């Protein structure tokens, strides 16, 4: 199929030419997904750490629910956020629908459970190791959670990457709440969906290649940051 060769040629051409539309779309994709990762980190990590360290009735049930929510279908999240943010919905007054804010909200909802569930797993294992030492030192629970998150920071970076991967790659949620509006809410994945629906498979694939390369670069950047810091300060 000549579409493959054509796609690589197009992808290279788009990047080489620093196509203004493409740069704008990439920029919005990164802003939306990175912000969603930030929100998910702020909400999901403490939640995961709490679930890992605090015993309360119903904890197992909550853990199961959070784990299950990792499989949230993006379209369902998109629909729920649409219904909430719609002018006919309870949060319509915010006027967030069809703006990047709506996309950030949807992606945050999508990946917070992923961050929380994986954080719980990592922190729980570390807490098991630290528990007796912390008990001996009478470390208060909040200090304990902060210390665990801080000590697990390199493993948690990988968790954030998992969340980022899910966010940057999903199309189902952002296309519903963002509307794929040119120059306003069009991101890489919705642009790919649009070009596919126009039958321009080569261009769609080219955008897909660019998206993959961006994901690769972000991962490489984070991993080299981690490797460097780890070498200096941690074993």
């Amino acid at each position: 199929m000549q579409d493959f060769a054509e796609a690589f040629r197009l992808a290279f051409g788009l990047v080489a030419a620093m196509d203004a539309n493409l740069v704008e779309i990439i920029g919005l994709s990164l802003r939306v997904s990175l912000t969603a990762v930030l929100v998910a980190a702020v909400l999901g990590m403490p939640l995961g750490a709490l679930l890992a360290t605090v015993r309360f009735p119903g904890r197992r049930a909550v853990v199961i629910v959070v784990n299950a929510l990792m499989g949230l279908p993006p379209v369902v999240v998109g629909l729920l956020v649409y219904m909430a943010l719609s002018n006919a919905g309870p949060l319509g007054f915010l006027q967030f629908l069809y703006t990047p804010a709506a996309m950030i909200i949807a992606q945050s909802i999508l990946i917070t459970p992923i961050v929380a569930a994986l954080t719980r797993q990592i922190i729980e294992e570390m807490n098991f190791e630290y528990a007796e030492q912390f008990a001996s030192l009478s470390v208060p629970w909040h200090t304990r959670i902060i210390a665990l998150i801080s000590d697990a920071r390199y493993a948690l970076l990988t968790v954030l990457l998992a969340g980022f991967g899910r966010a940057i790659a999903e199309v189902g949620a952002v296309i519903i709440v963002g509307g794929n509006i040119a120059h306003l809410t069009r991101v890489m994945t919705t642009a790919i969906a649009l070009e596919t629906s126009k039958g321009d498979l080569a261009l769609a694939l080219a955008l897909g290649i660019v998206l993959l390369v961006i994901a690769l670069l972000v991962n490489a950047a984070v991993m080299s940051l981690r490797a460097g810091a780890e070498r200096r300060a941690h074993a």
Partner: protein
Amino acid sequence: MLDQPVARSATQLPLAVAGLCFRAGGSTLINELDLILTDHGITVVMGPNGAGKSLLVRLLHGLIEPQSGSIDWNGKGCGQHTRLRQAMVFQKPVLLRRSVAANVDFVLRLKGIADRERLEQLLAQANLLAKADQPARALSGGEQQRLALARALASDPDVLFLDEPTASLDPSSTQTIETAIAEASGRGVKIVLVTHDAGQARRLANDVVFIHRGAVIEHAGADGFFKQPASMAARDYLAGKLVI
């Protein structure tokens, strides 16, 4: 025996343990154990494997709850409030995934006494000042245990428990640790040391608690214990025989 007119452990002693029982997995690991510690200085806990030594110090430190019996530190019971004035060094040190200095700093901050001078003094005493910025988990076994001890002392405890702290260390590290223990004891810290090393016990102990099958078989001054153990079990143990 050392003469300690103003021991800092005075607020915690005497320790009175009566009828202590701890069961797990269907077997009784601590069985009607009675113990009274009145003297300051270094108490060494000895006994064969499985006697319940590690369990006993964890119970005394309040890390685990007994099913029955009582532990009473100078009339104040046992729990979070008594643990705050105590510290413990475990057989296998659990160091935070941070630098050597940050491990000690963590405890100093916890106790609200963050102080750079004190930090450096503790590291110097553990012979770790040169490695202050290195990752704690990259240290050798001996260095890790020295750091664990420095960290325990950072909280300025009245009572210090050590659970076989030198079990897998070389002679030099063992000596550094023993010196630090003796020094802490000299400052009036009550030491409760679990060890299998008879030589170490002889060097450090003021009194010896010998336990077997979850109960105290013998509690005597170190001189007397090592010269003439009263019990058959202790005699066998010291002679290197299998203790039944």
